[in-house]
């Protein structure tokens, strides 16, 4: 864990967090924060696409299947825990659960930085898994919500202003989310563009990537700490869930990465991070639109204020150690 804390990205996260906790007047320009997100998604996608172009087809299919399985099963597991253990109402449970089926790109990138700084090799399929996991999670969230609303509400409420099915529209939203488009689009560019032309853009998307990531984590630290004030509203059970769920997910991810995919220690660590982390990109807007009755304060606090910092500080080095232990 010490080595993790000595990466600039993680240190910057701590500084951002700290600045907010001591109520510094440090401000992060909104459009810079949004620009960093766009850049990182494009950078990771491009990288993934270039790797995919030289990837082995069979292994890629395996990774996609694993991603779909994780994306569908993790939210169901989360839902059961929230409903039966936490007695959280059905709609809030659905919305929160969906987040845990998906992935936090920031956590994933921090894990990449963690591995790269230590020169630990890793497979690149997890990048493709990252792109795939948003959509199933959203679909499960929608189905859970539909299921909990019951049949009569469907008739009254399920037709949008334009007259056609709201469910269809929401599904469409799940696949046309801006972040998913950026990620898939950049993967496509990485696959299609000629190597000579890619080389021209890499100083931007690759050369300065790790530095930009560290700036992004400064902002995420502030963002996480801002959510602490909401802990009381969210309640102790949910905060605890935000720590327990990544541990459960991480363990499942380790097993999937090791046994099902047969990845190296680095690759297993990344799969664990995929399973352990909670989306703050594509799932929240989808849930806001699809389950407006759920309180965004709950799922955003859990995803950004609890699970994200937990994974960045404690989770990543822990999953890595467990991956080493599995491999031994």
């Amino acid at each position, binding site marked *: 864990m010490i080595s993790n804390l000595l990466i600039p990205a993680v240190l910057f996260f701590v500084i951002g967090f700290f600045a907010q906790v001591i109520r510094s007047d440090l401000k*992060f320009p*909104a459009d810079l*924060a*949004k620009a960093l*997100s766009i850049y990182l998604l494009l950078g990771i996608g491009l990288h993934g696409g270039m790797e995919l172009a030289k990837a082995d087809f069979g292994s890629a299919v395996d990774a996609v299947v694993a991603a779909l399985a994780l994306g569908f099963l993790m939210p169901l597991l989360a839902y059961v825990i929230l409903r039966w253990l936490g007695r959280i109402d059905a709609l809030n449970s659905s919305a929160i659960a969906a987040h845990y089926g998906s992935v936090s790109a920031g956590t994933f990138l921090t894990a990449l930085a963690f591995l790269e700084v230590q020169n630990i090799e890793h497979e690149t399929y997890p990048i493709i898994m990252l792109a795939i996991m948003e959509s199933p999670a959203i679909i499960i969230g929608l189905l859970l919500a539909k299921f909990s609303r019951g049949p009569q509400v469907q008739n009254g*409420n399920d037709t949008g*202003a*334009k007259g056609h099915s709201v469910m269809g529209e929401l599904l469409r939203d799940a696949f046309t989310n*801006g972040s998913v488009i950026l990620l898939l689009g950049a993967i496509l560019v990485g696959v299609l563009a000629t190597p000579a032309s890619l080389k021209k853009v890499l100083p931007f998307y690759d050369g300065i990537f790790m530095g930009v990531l560290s700036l992004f984590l400064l*902002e995420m630290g*502030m*963002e996480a700490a*801002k*959510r602490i*004030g*909401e802990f009381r*509203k969210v309640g102790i059970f949910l905060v605890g869930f935000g720590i327990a769920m990544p541990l459960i997910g991480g363990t499942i991810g380790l097993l999937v990465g090791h046994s099902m995919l047969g990845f190296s220690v680095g690759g297993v660590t990344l799969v664990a991070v995929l399973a352990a982390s909670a989306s*703050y*990109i594509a799932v*929240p*807007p989808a849930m*806001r*639109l699809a*389950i*407006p*009755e759920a*309180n*965004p*304060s709950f799922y*955003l*606090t859990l995803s950004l204020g609890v699970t994200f910092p937990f994974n960045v500080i404690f989770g990543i080095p822990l999953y890595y150690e467990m991956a080493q232990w599995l491999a031994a």
Partner: protein
Amino acid sequence: MVKLVSEKLIRIIAAAELESQLVDLSKRRSVSGYTVVDARGAGASGIQPGLMDIDSNILFLMVVPPGQFDEVMEDLAKIMRRGHHMMVLVSDIEVMRRKNVVTDKPSV
């Protein structure tokens, strides 16, 4: 003195995700236009610091003539009834538009 027309100013504070629905509404109801400003804030549904697409608000402005007012408000209420958090502020307003000050026919 210039001629002013009495209209209604509808201001909607909502999560940024709702922007496209509000634009659609304004088109469906043939409102002459709309104006959007990025915002942040806090309320019952939590803080919206405005740093990510997922935690930003917008301030959506529509100026509507009294005749269109009720149907627009009804549409907004419908969105709210689906569960969406938003705040709708209504006020009376005097408007100076180009067509009221330009005597000759404008070219557009």
